[in-house]
């Protein structure tokens, strides 16, 4: 199959969906400039022009409301936030209105808005430009929240968002943008609420989201060298959550490590652990372990930042601890960030 970068897959999904559906428009700060949101909106702007891909004033809260109002009149707005941290400014419209629209107005069609937010970890982006806000959004009934970790999922989940009933928040990790992978050329949606087993194994289950799903695969390689056969699950969707895929895996492995790009407390990792406790308790052979950033804001200084984010080694170590197999494994494996050239 043909290979594309993660960013290229997002661009292709946008262009193909806009070609198929004239009600889609793209708005966001800088979507029409020479950078085109790391190349993801550049081609759409070139093809469809200012009428359907346009720059906007600052004012994230109103822009979310504007998207809602346009959607209520039959449009499908795709709003892009170059940093998801700014989406705190959207929260009233998103949580208090978009998420509730279908229910509180008994309005079956709802408001199919799609918000893309980019998580900018690394390169010293610090406390307010490298958070990963999936738990914040996923708390609210009525929203869909997804975090693609591969180019194919980046395309398929965006297609689902732009064809679906919404409202949708898609969180993309900037560190994944250059990653290449096989991507179908056709417009094929990947449904929300369906995780993927990205590596089959029998000894332990690693559940990862976004960049951590990718890092979990690298951790599994380290573990394989230690004779540990890890199963890796990429959640892909945060809301709805694929409980079944977690339970099915635990039935086989009985051990669970959850790796998340955001904090443990009240986070996605807590939710996955709750699924294990509520729905897979009889299968558990060991306590669940979470691998997440520590309970502090993100730092800037490189050694601190490197220590802040989970990586394949910390995930592998956690697995080995759960398996009580010692922790000498994995020396010499480079972090993905070490090979990434900024600034971004």
């Amino acid at each position, binding site marked *: 199959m043909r290979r594309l970068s993660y960013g290229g897959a997002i661009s292709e999904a946008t262009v193909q969906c806009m070609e198929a559906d004239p009600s889609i*428009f793209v708005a966001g700060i800088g979507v029409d400039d020479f950078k085109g949101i790391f190349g993801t909106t550049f081609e759409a702007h070139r093809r469809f022009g200012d*009428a359907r891909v346009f720059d*906007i*004033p600052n*004012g994230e*809260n*109103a*822009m*979310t*409301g*504007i*998207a*809602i*109002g*346009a*959607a*209520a*009149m*039959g*449009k499908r*707005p795709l709003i892009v936030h170059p940093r998801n941290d700014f989406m705190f400014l959207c929260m*009233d*419209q998103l949580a*208090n*209105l978009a998420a509730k*629209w*279908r*229910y*509180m*107005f*008994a*309005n*079956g069609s709802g408001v199919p808005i799609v918000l893309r937010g980019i998580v900018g970890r690394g390169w010293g982006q610090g406390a307010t430009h490298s958070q990963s806000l999936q738990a914040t959004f996923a708390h609210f*009934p*009525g929203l869909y929240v997804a975090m693609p970790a591969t180019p194919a999922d980046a395309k398929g989940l965006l297609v689902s968002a732009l064809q679906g*009933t919404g409202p949708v928040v898609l969180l993309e990790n900037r560190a994944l943008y250059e990653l290449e992978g096989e991507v179908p050329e056709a417009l094929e949606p990947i449904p929300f609420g369906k995780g993927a087993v990205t590596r089959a194994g029998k000894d332990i289950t690693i559940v990862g989201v976004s960049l951590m799903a990718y890092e979990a695969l690298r951790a599994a390689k380290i573990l394989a060298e230690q004779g540990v056969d890890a199963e890796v699950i990429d959640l892909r969707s945060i809301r709805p959550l694929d409980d079944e895929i977690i339970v099915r895996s635990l039935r086989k492995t009985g051990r669970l490590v959850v790796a998340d790009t955001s904090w443990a407390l009240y986070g996605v990792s807590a939710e996955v652990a709750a699924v294990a406790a509520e729905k897979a308790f009889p299968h558990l052979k060991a306590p669940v372990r979470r691998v997440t950033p520590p309970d502090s804001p993100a730092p800037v200084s490189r050694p601190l930042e490197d220590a802040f984010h989970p990586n394949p080694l910390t995930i592998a170590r956690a697995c080995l601890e759960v398996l009580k197999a010692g922790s000498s494994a994995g020396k010499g494996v480079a972090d993905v960030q070490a090979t990434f050239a900024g600034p971004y």
Partner: protein
Amino acid sequence: MEVERRLLRDMIRIRRTEETLAELYPAQEMRTPTHFSIGQEAVAVGVCTALRRTDAVYSGHRCHAHYLAKGGNLDAMVAELYGKETGCARGRGGSVHLSDLSAGVIASSAILGQTMAVAVGSALAFGMDGQDRVAVTFFGDGTVEEGIFHESLNFAVVKKLPVLFVCENNGYSTHTRLDVRQPAGVSIHARAASYGLSSRLVDGNDVFAVYEAAREAVATCRAGAGPAFLECTTYRWREHVGPLWDYDKGYRTKAEVDAWIARCPIERATTRLVRTGACTPAEVEAMTRASQAEVDRAVAAAKAAPFPAVEDLTLGTY
């Protein structure tokens, strides 16, 4: 019916509805925080009468008058307050979340300023598709203090969108007076004008003045000249939320309330139409009786209607 009589009739209908609901409210059967528009009917009726059915109206927490003036279904509104399955939001939304898409009442919301931006978004859609439609958002003087007020006006003017902003300035945000909340000597309509749109101050208790101002403003929007803004001064008679009188609670005086009751928009319109011969007192009496009968039927139907089924509690979330 010519427009003057229609303006009066619609105000009477809203007043009869709300006074009836206020009377019934203490029976505890309407379990939804209710913000009555009694005293403020002229703004809703004056503006909505200048609109077409296809125009889109948005409102805030004090939304009954806007919903009814735009043609929202009365039975469905009353049933919504009673929490019934026949309500306009099937008992899920309550008094502050009224909607009737067939009448162009798109949404109302209890968060200040929310629907300002949403109306701007609908106007954006109308503009993109070249549709001859206008979006209108009603909000109070309290919303002017929210950041979204600025964000919405800014966007609407930059994009020259067909949206009419209607500020009902009733002098209070809950129990806090305007002069505690906003700088002295800078009026709301002047602040709006500073964004570069057409902005006017109107006597919000004079339904004919509101109607004429709204007609002009809507024409501006339809002509593609960008958004327009109306500040309508008016007054809420009853408490902020609920059916009672609250002039003994210390934040305002009975003399102040009485002075505004003396400027009742319905009395003023009646006096003028009777004086000019457009309407006889008997006709006004007949309008009142017909409205009362209509709301009595709506209440009876709402009381008789079924509650939503508990099995359906989470239905409609997705």
